[in-house]
């Protein structure tokens, strides 16, 4: 392969790479523990259950975050290993946040009125193995309170939480302490005919929002951590198609804390539901240059299909036209194949590739990710992921084991 031969490292480069390994591992730690952009994660695997759109279960049109009452009930009754025998609200119910699936198991009753809340936390254990050693870490990956009110087509949505230590960036410097952050806060309006608009802070629509925020299609296109924008999103559903366009003066964190990285950006995403179990997605994003970054952009396509009620296969390929500080043009390919081995137990297999872009000093990366996601009951699931990352340019391997207890109250 041409790119491969052009980017093979010399022995000196390999030596330098190994010397920098510790720095890379530290960076990887920061990536893994730093603010996870979404809370209740978007799960494209539910294409197998004939859910092609995020808004069936989430308030956010781009997925992730607080579940709607319908999403909570679906989690309780249909996606968890146990819970199917529970009595569900009667058909025709407009809005019923009661029952086990409600906030704090419904302990507050009607006290909150139309306000729906969710509390999310993820105590985790991380183990990163690298040549010559490994590093272990116990951490609380996130702790967020999310609220939403929905009435007459209007939605007001906000979350407040804790950005882990060594994650928040202020004026270009990573802060050693945990910090307050509101990853998303926005107001939106959606008409019955499918036209919608929202304004505020949110993740722009692009590609497939895989639940793993370190997936190559998220991490290298800046959709992995606190990469939300302040902006305006317009969306329209036209038959089986969904079009989402976002314009923004810049990334939210740059606007708030680091003006030198603030730059206009625009993103577009088009989805065609070919069948209830087959979807095509095309996306593009453009970011104007900032004081510190060159202009950048990406275009991509994704295809998802579910051959049965228990299997979904998503594949996304992106051309990264110029990354901010990581070299020239590169390709990213991510496949995620999910199998529901048993009710509530999803096994995922995800090979991923990022080419080097041909720029000196930048690497071709390959990953194999294996994941077991167990949803025994409403409000909590256990997720164990194993990543094998191979730097093909410098022939360096790292392996990562991440175990998470995901509590969603």
């Amino acid at each position, binding site marked *: 392969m041409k790119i491969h031969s052009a980017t093979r490292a010399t022995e000196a480069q390999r030596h330098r790479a190994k010397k920098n390994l510790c720095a890379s591992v530290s960076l990887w730690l920061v990536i893994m523990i730093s603010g996870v952009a979404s809370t209740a994660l978007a799960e494209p695997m539910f294409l197998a259950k004939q*859910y092609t*759109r995020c808004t069936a279960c989430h308030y956010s049109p781009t997925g992730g975050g607080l579940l709607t009452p319908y999403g909570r009930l679906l989690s309780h009754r*249909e996606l968890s290993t146990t819970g*199917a025998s529970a009595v569900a609200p009667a058909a*025709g119910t407009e*809005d019923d946040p009661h029952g086990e699936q409600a906030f704090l198991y419904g302990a507050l009753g009607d006290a909150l009125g139309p306000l729906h809340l969710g509390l999310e936390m993820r105590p985790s254990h991380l183990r990163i193995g690298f040549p010559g050693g490994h590093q272990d870490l116990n951490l609380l990956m996130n702790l967020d309170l999310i609220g939403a009110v929905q009435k007459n087509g209007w939605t007001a949505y906000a979350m407040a939480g804790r950005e882990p230590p060594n994650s928040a960036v202020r004026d270009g410097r990573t802060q050693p302490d945990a910090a307050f952050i509101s990853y998303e806060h926005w107001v939106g309006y959606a008409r019955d005919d499918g036209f919608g608009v929202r304004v505020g802070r949110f993740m722009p629509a692009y590609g497939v929002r895989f639940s793993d925020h370190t997936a190559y299609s998220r991490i290298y296109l800046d959709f992995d951590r606190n990469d939300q924008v302040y902006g305006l999103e317009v969306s329209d559903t036209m038959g089986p198609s*969904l079009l989402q366009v976002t314009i923004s003066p810049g990334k939210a964190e740059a606007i708030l804390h680091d003006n030198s990285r603030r730059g206009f950006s625009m993103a577009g995403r088009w989805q065609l539901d070919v069948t*209830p179990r087959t979807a095509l997605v095309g996306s593009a994003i453009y970011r104007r240059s900032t004081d510190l970054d060159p202009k950048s952009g990406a275009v991509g396509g994704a295809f998802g299909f579910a051959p049965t*009620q228990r299997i979904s296969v998503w594949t996304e390929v992106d051309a990264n036209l110029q990354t901010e500080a990581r070299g020239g043009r590169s390709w990213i390919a991510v496949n995620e194949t999910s199998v529901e081995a048993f009710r509530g137990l999803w096994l995922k297999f995800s090979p991923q590739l990022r080419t080097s872009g041909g720029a000196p000093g930048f690497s071709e990366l390959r990953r194999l990710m294996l994941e077991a996601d167990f949803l025994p009951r409403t409000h909590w699931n256990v997720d164990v992921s194993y990543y094998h990352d191979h730097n093909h340019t410098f022939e360096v391997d790292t392996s990562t084991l991440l175990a998470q207890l995901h509590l969603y109250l």
Partner: protein
Amino acid sequence: MKQGDVSVKCPLTVGGSFDAKTAALSGMLTTSAAQPSSLDGSLAVDLRTIDTGISLRNDHLREKYLEVDKGAGYDMAVLSEIALKGLNPEAPEGKGSFDGSLTLHGVKKMVGGPVEVRKAGAGLRVKASFPVNLPDYNIPEPRYLGVGVKNTVQVEVTFTTTP
């Protein structure tokens, strides 16, 4: 009729759609002696077998909206009085359209749509589709916790005939 499938595409109010399917299609159709473009007989679907892939959705669809336990006329959907247009009933291969009466939820209404007939061994492979407007059949608006099915669903019927 030898083998048949019915698929109902249900568009969701929040975007996207799901298919409700069943293979419990039965019936007999013959060319009418009195009116060659018409077919005598009917096709019937057992609505108790319709499957959406999720138990909660199945329960609501069958019990709340279709009310399959309510008695005769509710547990089956029947398509009868079928008339073909643009097809020769004696050699009906090709594309055309049809009209017919659909009895659903105790209500009988005219429906119509495109039909395609192809040869399949000694018999024929028939594929027809038509929209169904749920309020026309006194079916309540399917809405649940803010998510619902739009009022008009698209029915696709596929079956193979025996000579």
